[in-house]
């Protein structure tokens, strides 16, 4: 029996569905453990967030079911339209129609529901990139198309940065994973990593010393390649050019970015993560050190909660740190703490492994697609999931700066849960038609 003749139910990747359900249920249990008090009379307290999450979960399942019933061709036809609509919604959030929450301006109130267009835009960006790269006219080997493709991710990212929601904006970097898979040259990655290292060096080493260091390195390279230098002057220009770029980047661009692009508290968080004190010139006006203390406090409370779990944890509903609100934002960004505390090293490792299995499964799903569209889309989804996992878990254990992004499927929050559901179920739907070539 060929694949096409198989029943639709058999063509669905049940492992992904199973992991999806498992993670959602773990999430509800975690939120419940945070909010449950031994004095509660009943489980069904509609005021509590875990009940809301259960409703979101129900809605998500419904949406997932609808997606499974749709024709998979529909996903190849909507991307550009969706992207345009999403883009306008994103801009709309910047207008007075948008709603400010905690200093960010990324929410949109449509009267019947409030959501972040930035979250929705993740879905459309994924579909659009997949669609654009599979267009007949697109040749990803050309610089022009690479730039266009990158722009699909970078433009919404810049708008979201304007909305003061840096965490969400950075998620758009994860689309470069899919582009890398589709042939983004290694040199781009090398340059990206070099710039990252240079940025870190700028933070850690005083400017003047860095200047001498870079100059010294350039002279050293020139000395090493003195023989080739006689033959061709190109190397001189190459080394000189790199030196110039490095100097401009470290002496002017990074300080400019830190004073004008990034917010004071974000700079502080980056400095906090690398264990340095924020220089006074980067702390913007009106931002006192309290905010820095707050993010330090969050991380240290989160680490305390996770560490206190020990190997097997304190047991479900026995967490002292998470149950008594010691950890801030523990329903949303710091939900990993509840697992760390209640189920210990054992439980957290299992959770991380579940995510790992999901990620690897999505990669293998991607690789078995006949259609390039599905493959690129699958890589986009895995990239988003990976980025969320790395940053979210990383920040709770002090490996990443505190940028508020949720743990996929587990953190409390309707928009986030629905968007991840849609992302995953579109993937499942596309995978069910993996023998088809979608364009």
């Amino acid at each position, binding site marked *: 029996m060929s694949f096409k003749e198989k029943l639709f139910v058999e063509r669905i990747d049940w492992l992904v569905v199973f992991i999806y359900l498992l993670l959602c249920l773990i999430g509800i249990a975690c939120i419940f453990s945070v909010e449950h008090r031994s004095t509660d009379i009943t489980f069904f307290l509609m005021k509590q967030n875990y009940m809301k999450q259960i409703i979101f979960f129900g809605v998500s399942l419904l949406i997932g079911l609808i997606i499974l019933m749709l024709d998979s061709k529909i996903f190849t036809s909507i991307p550009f339209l969706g992207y345009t609509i999403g883009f306008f919604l994103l801009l709309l959030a910047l207008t007075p129609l948008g709603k400010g929450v905690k200093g960010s301006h990324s929410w949109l109130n449509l009267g019947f529901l409030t959501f972040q267009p930035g979250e929705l835009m993740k879905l459309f960006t994924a579909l659009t990139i997949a669609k654009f790269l599979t267009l007949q006219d697109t040749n990803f080997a050309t610089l022009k198309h690479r730039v266009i493709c990158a722009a699909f991710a970078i433009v919404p990212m810049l708008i979201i940065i304007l909305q003061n929601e840096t965490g969400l904006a950075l998620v758009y970097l994860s689309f470069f994973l899919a582009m890398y898979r589709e*042939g983004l040259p290694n040199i781009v990655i090398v340059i990206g990593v070099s710039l990252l290292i240079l940025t870190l060096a700028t933070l850690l080493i005083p400017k003047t010393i860095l200047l001498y260091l870079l100059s010294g390195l350039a002279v050293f390279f020139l000395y090493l390649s003195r023989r080739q230098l006689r033959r061709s002057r190109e190397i001189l220009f190459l080394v000189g050019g790199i030196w110039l770029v490095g100097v401009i980047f470290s002496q002017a661009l990074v300080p400019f970015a830190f004073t004008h692009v990034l917010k004071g508290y974000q700079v502080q968080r980056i400095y906090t993560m690398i264990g340095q004190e924020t220089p006074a010139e980067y702390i913007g006006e009106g931002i006192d050190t309290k905010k820095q203390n707050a993010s330090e406090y969050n991380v240290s409370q989160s680490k305390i909660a996770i560490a206190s779990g*020990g190997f097997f944890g304190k047991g479900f509903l026995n967490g002292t740190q998470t149950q008594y609100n010691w950890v801030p934002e523990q329903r949303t960004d710091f939900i990993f703490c509840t697992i760390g505390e209640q189920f210990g090293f054992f439980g957290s490792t299992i959770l991380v492994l579940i995510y790992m299995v999901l990620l690897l499964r999505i990669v293998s799903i991607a690789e078995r697609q006949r259609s390039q569209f599905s493959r690129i889309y699958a890589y986009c989804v895995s990239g988003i999931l990976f980025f969320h996992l790395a940053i979210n878990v990383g920040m709770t254990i002090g490996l990443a700066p505190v940028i508020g992004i949720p743990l996929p499927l587990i953190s409390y929050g309707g928009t986030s849960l629905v968007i991840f559901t849609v992302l995953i179920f579109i993937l499942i739907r596309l995978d069910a038609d993996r023998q088809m070539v979608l364009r």
Partner: protein
Amino acid sequence: MADFTQNRSVFIKIVFIALPLLIIIRLLFLQVFDIGNYKEAALGQAVYIKKVYPPRGIIYDRKNKVLMNNSIVYDLVVEPKKITSDFDTLFLCKLINVPIEDFRFQLKKVIIKNGWQKPSALFKNLSPISVARLQENLYDFSGIDLIEHAERNYHFGCGGTILGYINEVSETQLKSDRYADYQKGDYIGINGLENYYEDVLKGVPGVQYLLRDVKQRIQGAYKDGRLDSSATPGKPLQLYLDADLQKLTEELMANKLGSAVAIDPKTGGILAFANGPSFDPTLLTGANKGANLSKMLNDATKPLFIRAIQAKYPPGSTFKPLTALVALDEGVITPDYGYPCMGGYYACGRRVACTHSGHGHASNLALAIANSCNAYFCHVFRLAIDSRKYENVHIGLERWHDYMTSFGLGHPIGVDIPHENGGNIPDSNYFNRTYNDNWNSCNMAILGMGQGEVEMTPMQMANSMCILANKGYYYIPHFVKSIDADPNHPLLKKYKEKKVVAHIADSSFEYVIAGMQAVVDQGTGMIAKMPDVVVCAKTGTAQNERMINGQKVKLQNHSMFVAFAPRRDPKIAVAVCIENAGYGATWAGPIASLMIERYLKDSISEKRQYLVKKMKDAKIIPNYTYILDSLDKQMARQKDLLKNRSKDSLKRDLIIKDSLSRRHDSLTARYLIRKFYHY
């Protein structure tokens, strides 16, 4: 389209495996190896270790009347660090009924005193209504807590100097060995029995492990209370003290400087122990304790000075029975020995005056004691130390010193409240130093009549009466009869030992006691006579001299009275000393006599009620007490200044100026005393 980049999926897979592994390794260090000691931090944050203070032991009198028990009071404790900007100070002040300025002032004070971190008591002993109001709204305030602790309650309104008081342990006390296992905020007994029996009274504190949330609200027991330990209350003490007698004695001692001590000779148990001027012990509790204490400490009449064990007086004539006892035991006199006193003792050149000059007032021992003949006892004392048995007077004096030591004199006797003074009994070393090794019995003849270098505390006087009453033994005077109904508690062991005195013959005691009976029957102490009880007593009028700026100034005599009763089977021994009150029989005598009557008869007869009223109402505090006190304080300041002297010329000038003013003051003081009191 050809796929040239398929191998990149492998790199992506590697990254997807590497990152979770990195997270897992980090978790391993964090959770299993506990790098950074975060577990401890968790215990310190969410688990709140609460010390549960046990009630201190209750103190009963001999008839099981409660002298002291506990009541629960609440302190408002603040942790300045945790006070947030939205702290509603006005509301809090309204709740506890305190002006907002007061609150701010107190808060600043504790911050300066204890810093930002430490929780410290802002207001102590809140009224019950404030506590009730605050408890309902406590969750509104972060950094504020109500800490309950037991306050001592002086149930009978007497015995402040005996019972002592409790206070929070101080930083310096925490450093001492005795309070090594105490923590800041613990209460300790400061004086009296509270201090001496601290170990049994305090009980064992319990520990509660509680869970609290980020706003410091208690959320329940940690691990269902499995780690908790309950507090063991302090053990109760039963005293020998007779609460009614004590109350009466304190009333009698009101507005007088001095003390009155009554001991049960058979056990050494102290029946009454009053120090004048007596004060209301409730001053030692409550919110104003500190202010009251400092006020009393600065008072010229020194109410906190436990005169019964801390003040040293020359015993005066009350010493004469002991002199007689020594002489009889040494065999230098017989009971029939007489001395031809003609109103003075001239044998040593200088006249020692005697109040009596009539012929035959010292024709035998009993008469000499009854009439309190100074000449007789100076002579007898000289006989005793110049006894032919001894090579020289040095050995004779040493022998006398041994007697006195065995009577419990010259050293702290060992009462079970702290800060006891030992009095003074001079030995040959002292005279060697004073007279350059060149002295004889004439130099110290007045020791025999209780003047000169000999000094005793009222407690020692009462104890010497116990020795006479028991005919040769005593128990160390003490307050506590039993601890937790156990009379053989290790702490009480030393008070169960019978101290036998110098093995003096019973007959010697009988002769002296006969003389003391004569004192009451026909001698100086007739005021103490009781119709159906044979009282043995001795009056005393101790000369009171004071050095003022290097010159001896004679002040009003101290009035002394010692007694025991009944003669057969003695039940009470009393020593009363009233400073600056003149003759022993006028003031000390009646008080001692009333105490004996109250104890033996359980009430004071109608006939003598006038005496009670007279004694209670009398105020015997001479005005020069205040002058002398300010002089003393000035001297102390002077000494302090000299001690901390520096090269600083400004300070030196100050010292010179101060010493000049001191000289002026003391001259004025002497002038005033001469002029108005004719001494």
